[in-house]
C-alpha cells in the first residue's frame, strides 16, 4: 500500500466550555490516494470537529490538545496561516453541508466559481469563466451559461450542491472534505448527487473524507469507513466488511437504527440501553487510561 494522502494520528481535542470535556479521543485514520473514506457517527461524535481542524476553522471553544493531521506528510495543525491558506482550495477543498447557505446570496455564480480559479490558478477573468463553464458541464448542468449568470436563490438545492461540487473539484484538489453534502437534499436528488460525486472522484483520482451520519449514504459511496462515538474510534475497515459484519456493538446498534430501503417494513431499533451503558463504560475506561498515561 502506498503512503496515505491524509493521515490523522491520535488526534485529541477538548471543549473549553464544558470544563475540558474530551471531544476527540485519540482518533487515528488514514485516507489513501483515490480512496473515499467515510467518517460516521451520530451528532456530537466529533465528525465535524475533525473536518474543521483540517480546514483551520476550528471553533474558539474547542482546543486540539494532541495528535497530528498529516497531509502528504506535512502536519496541517503545525502550519502557519499563510501556509495553510496556500494549501486550502488548491490541494484540499470542502464540499459544505448546506447548499442554501454555502453560496454567497449577493454574488452571481460566475463570480463565486471563478474566485478560487483566479486566486489559486492565476487565471485571467475570461479563462476562469471558460473553466467555470466547463466545470458546470462536468457536474451535468444543462444550461451552464444561465446558471453562471444566476444568483444562488434562483437555483434549486440540487443545482446549488452541483455548483458547490464543481467549485470544490474545480481546482483539482488532492483531497476533498465532504461535510454531509447530501443531508439537506431530498432522497432522489441525494442519489444523483452521490453518483455524480463518485464519478468525479474516480475521474480525478481524488481522495475524499466523507463525513456523514447516514450509513445508507456511506454504503453507497465509501471504500472504507471509520465509526466514531463520543470522539472515539469504535470500528474501522472496508465499508463492505464493517457494514456486513460489524464487530462492535455500537456499529450494530447504528445499523439497526438505519432505515432499510430493501426492507421498508422492518422497524427502526433504538440503541439498546445495555449497549449505551457498555459504550459509556468503554469511554470511561479510555479516559482513565489516557489520564494515567498522561501523568506518567
Amino acid at each position, binding site marked *: 500500500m502506498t503512503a496515505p494522502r491524509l493521515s490523522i494520528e491520535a488526534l485529541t481535542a477538548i471543549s473549553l466550555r464544558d470544563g475540558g470535556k474530551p471531544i476527540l479521543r485519540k482518533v487515528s485514520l488514514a485516507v489513501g490516494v483515490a480512496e473515499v473514506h467515510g467518517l460516521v457517527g451520530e451528532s456530537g461524535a466529533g465528525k465535524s470537529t475533525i473536518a474543521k481542524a483540517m480546514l483551520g476553522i476550528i471553533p474558539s471553544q474547542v482546543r486540539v490538545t494532541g495528535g497530528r493531521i498529516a497531509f502528504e506528510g506535512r502536519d496541517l495543525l503545525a502550519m502557519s496561516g499563510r501556509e495553510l491558506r496556500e494549501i486550502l482550495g488548491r490541494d484540499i477543498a470542502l464540499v459544505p453541508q448546506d447548499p442554501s447557505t*454555502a453560496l454567497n446570496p449577493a454574488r452571481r455564480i460566475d463570480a463565486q466559481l471563478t474566485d478560487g480559479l483566479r486566486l489559486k490558478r492565476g487565471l485571467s477573468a475570461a479563462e476562469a469563466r471558460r473553466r467555470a463553464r466547463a466545470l458546470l458541464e462536468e457536474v451535468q448542468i444543462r444550461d451552464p451559461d444561465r446558471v453562471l449568470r444566476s444568483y444562488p436563490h434562483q437555483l434549486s438545492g440540487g443545482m446549488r450542491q452541483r455548483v458547490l461540487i464543481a467549485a470544490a473539484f474545480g481546482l483539482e484538489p488532492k483531497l476533498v472534505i465532504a461535510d454531509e453534502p447530501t443531508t439537506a437534499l431530498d432522497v432522489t436528488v441525494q442519489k444523483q448527487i452521490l453518483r455524480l460525486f463518485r464519478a468525479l472522484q474516480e475521474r480525478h483520482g481524488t481522495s475524499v473524507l466523507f463525513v456523514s451520519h447516514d450509513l445508507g449514504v456511506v454504503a453507497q459511496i465509501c471504500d472504507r469507513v471509520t465509526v466514531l462515538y463520543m470522539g472515539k474510534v469504535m470500528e474501522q475497515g472496508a465499508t463492505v466488511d464493517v457494514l456486513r459484519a460489524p464487530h462492535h456493538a455500537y456499529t450494530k446498534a447504528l445499523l439497526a437504527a438505519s432505515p432499510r430501503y430493501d426492507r421498508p417494513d422492518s422497524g427502526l431499533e433504538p440503541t439498546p440501553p445495555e449497549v449505551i451503558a457498555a459504550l459509556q463504560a468503554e469511554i470511561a475506561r479510555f479516559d482513565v487510561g489516557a489520564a494515567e498515561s498522561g501523568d506518567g
Partner: protein
Amino acid sequence: MEHWSPTATIADTGPRPPSVAVRLARDPKVAVAGGFIVLLIVLAVAAPLIAPKDPLEQNLLLATVPPAGFAQAEPGYLLGTDGLGRDVLSRVIFGTRVSLTVAFVAAGLACLIGSLLGLLAGYLGGLVDTVISRLVDIWMAFPPVLLSILLVAVLGSGLHSVIAAIVVIDWTRFCRVVRTETMGQAQMDYVVAARTIGFTRPAILFREILPNVLPVLIALLTLEMGIAVVVEAILSFVGLSVSSDTPTWGGMIAEGRQIVHEAWWVLAVPLAALFATVVAFNQLGDGLARSLDPVLRR
C-alpha cells in the same frame, strides 16, 4: 451509473431575471421618489438658468406679494414675494443647492466613516468591537440637535461646519447597523467556505460580506440624506448655517415664521419643499432596500 441521465432532473431556473436597473425603474416608489430627487438635482445645478428672478434682489414696493391666483398677485412672481420683496420661487430653487450639498456630502461621509468602523467591529470582534461599540454608546448619549448646535457654535457657522456636525453625529447610525449586519453575515457558511479556499480576512470582508451589507447600507444612506436635509434646515433656522445672503430653506422658514399672519406663503413654500424632499429620500431608501436585496428580489 448506467441509468444516469444527465439532463432529466435538472430544475429549470426560469427566464433570465431582469437587471438591477430595470427592476429599480419598475418599483413605483423608486421611480417616483428617485425622479423627484433627480429633479431637485437638476434645479440645484441649473438654478441660475431656471430661477425666474435673482433670489437676492429686493424690491420693497413689491413686498409680500401673494402667489399667482390670489388677489393682488403680481405677474412674474409665481409663488409670491417675501417681506423684502424677493421672489420666493427663485429663493426655494436656490435653496436646493445648500440642502442637496449637505444631503450628499454629509450623508456620504457619515456613511463612509460609520460603515468602515462597523465592518471592522462586526468582523474582527474582540477588542476592536468593544472599543468601537463603547464609543458609539457614549456618542449616542449626547442629544443630537444640541450637540450639532454646540459643534457649529464652536466651529463657527458655515456650510463646512454644518457638514462636519452631521458627520460627527450621525456616523454612529451607520456603524451600529453595519456592525450588526456584518456580525450576522460573518456567521454564514459562505464566509467559512471562502476561508476554506484560502481567502484572507480583508478579501472576505470586502468581497464576500460587503455585497451583502450593501442593500441595507444604501437604504440607510438615502434615509440619512433626508435627515441631513432636516438638520441643515434646523441649523439654518437658528441662524447657524450659511450666511444669511445665501438662500436656504431653513432660513426662509425662519423669516416666514415672523410674518406668517401677513404672508403665509413665505413659510409654506420652503416648508413644503423640505417636506417633499425628506419624504422622497425616505421612500427612495425604502424602495432601494427592497429592490436591492438579493434574497427578497424576484
